[in-house]
């Protein structure tokens, strides 16, 4: 992870760590904080706890998003302080710049980026104040029907980081459960880092090709990092650590507590193994139960 972040994530980059509640790569986010990246533009539908941590750590210049809450719990308080004008955390003296869409808008931005088109049309935003808050949401007249459609600009990140259940050494990556917008975000990106629970042989990938979401040809680096998505989850591996999501409410509300959290669990450990060593009992509490799929016949 250290090498992948060091080689592929640079100051000033537009960085995407995707995953909708599921498969959010906290391990990569923590390594970016440890390496002290600055002036990042972070994009993601739901900034979640990981971007709240990156904001508090002073890594972020701008946030592009569509729903900035603590899912099922409440607020992201470092984000709120940065937007509501209470600054000063992590040496961050400037206001956080924001660019806001809806989920459909963000998905459409990644779709345009992945297809290497300049924009994506969608039937949306009529009667909403979102285009007023974000002038990059525009309209176009359909050349066939004359209908006015909303448009959003392509999003092409410098680097996209995707957590997944398994990949082979060449980066052919398989995931299951909620798929979010990872495929589009990866194809839209200049560089792609894949982080997996398990490294498998190519024959395992080839035995179930419909499950491959990201092909090795677009992957810059593969990192093996079991439990790398904790406190989010990996279907079939471990459940969401909801206790931590609830605890984040009190931690993030108090800048001093948040600082101590980063000191202890991010700066205070060398890597993911160190982070996990501080939390014995995670596996006993969160390991997934077995619900195997039946499998299919790929023969001809």
């Amino acid at each position: 992870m250290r090498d992948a972040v060091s080689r592929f994530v640079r100051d000033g980059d537009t960085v995407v760590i995707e995953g909708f509640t599921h498969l959010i790569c906290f391990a990569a986010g923590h390594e970016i904080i440890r390496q002290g990246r600055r002036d990042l533009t972070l994009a993601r539908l739901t900034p979640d706890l990981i971007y709240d941590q990156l904001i508090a750590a002073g890594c972020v210049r701008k946030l592009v998003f569509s729903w900035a809450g603590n899912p099922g719990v409440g607020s992201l308080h470092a984000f709120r302080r940065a937007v509501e004008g209470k600054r000063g955390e992590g040496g961050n003296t400037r206001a956080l710049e924001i660019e806001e869409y809806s989920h459909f808008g963000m998905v459409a931005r990644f779709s345009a980026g992945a297809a290497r088109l300049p924009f994506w049309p969608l039937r949306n935003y009529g009667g909403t104040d979102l285009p007023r808050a974000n002038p990059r949401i525009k309209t176009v007249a359909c050349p066939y029907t004359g209908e006015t459609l909303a448009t959003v600009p392509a999003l092409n990140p410098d680097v996209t980081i995707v957590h997944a259940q398994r990949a082979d050494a060449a980066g052919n990556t398989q995931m299951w459960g909620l798929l979010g917008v990872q495929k589009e975000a990866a194809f839209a990106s200049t560089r792609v880092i894949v982080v997996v629970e398990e490294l498998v042989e190519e024959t395992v990938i080839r035995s179930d090709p419909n499950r491959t979401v990201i092909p090795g040809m677009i992957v810059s680096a593969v990192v093996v990092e079991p439990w790398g998505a904790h406190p989010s989850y990996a279907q079939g591996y471990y459940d969401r650590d909801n206790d931590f999501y609830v605890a984040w409410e009190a931690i993030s509300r108090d800048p001093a507590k948040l600082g101590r959290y980063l000191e202890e669990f991010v700066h205070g450990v060398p890597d993911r193994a160190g982070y996990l060593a501080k939390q014995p009992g995670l596996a006993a509490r969160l390991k997934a139960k077995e619900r195997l799929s039946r499998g299919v016949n790929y023969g001809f």
Partner: protein
Amino acid sequence: MTVVAARELRDGEVVFVGIGLPNLACNLARATHAPNLVLIYESGAVGAVPERVPVSIGDPALVTGSLMVCGMADVFQLFLQNGKIEVGFLGGAQVDRYGNINTTVIGPYERPAVRLPGSGGAAEIAVHAQRTLIIAKLNARAFPERVDFVTSPGQRSGGRTRRELGLPGAGPVKVITDKGILEADGTTGEMTLMALYPGVSPEDVQARVGWPLARRDRLATVDPPSARDLRLLREVLDPKMLYLKPKGDGKTA
């Protein structure tokens, strides 16, 4: 309020489920009168049958045993924009006279007094769902004449009707509150008092609404929840009171 909201769902309907109380109401409906309700979550789970109350709309229990799991581009384009969603179910920090919902900011956008989470999928649900239900606790702060920011369009926004704005769905047809039910007037688009909870007067409702509230000539009385509904909610669906306890902002979208 959750029980009253659940009653609005008909068996077999396709529902796009938002986080918080809508999530609970949909799962209550599925456990009672609407076993064939098709729950679609913006996270990509279609036909979800969660074995535990989903903590969020991205809960892994939504995947296990579902009919289909798709990417979010498919959720928004192939299901929602395609017109396949019959009911959209939304909460909101502010709801106004025409059912416009604000989940973005209290105060001016550039310098907000309170920064809320934002749209999530709520803007497009309000645009595309064939009809939308809103669930929100009644109080004057939450029900102003005009919301500070229109995140999700109601029956009329900026003086223009849904037809004039080119919005495909019927928009918010009802607002389920903890005192009574408002419904959109077919002509004016105004949210109009149609039913009261037992023991609540029209004046109680008016005192918690920031505009002169129109009312139907005959106000219905909402049936109280059955013992079975309450037992299901408290013992089976939400025993840890994740949703049923009062909470701050941040649970909408």
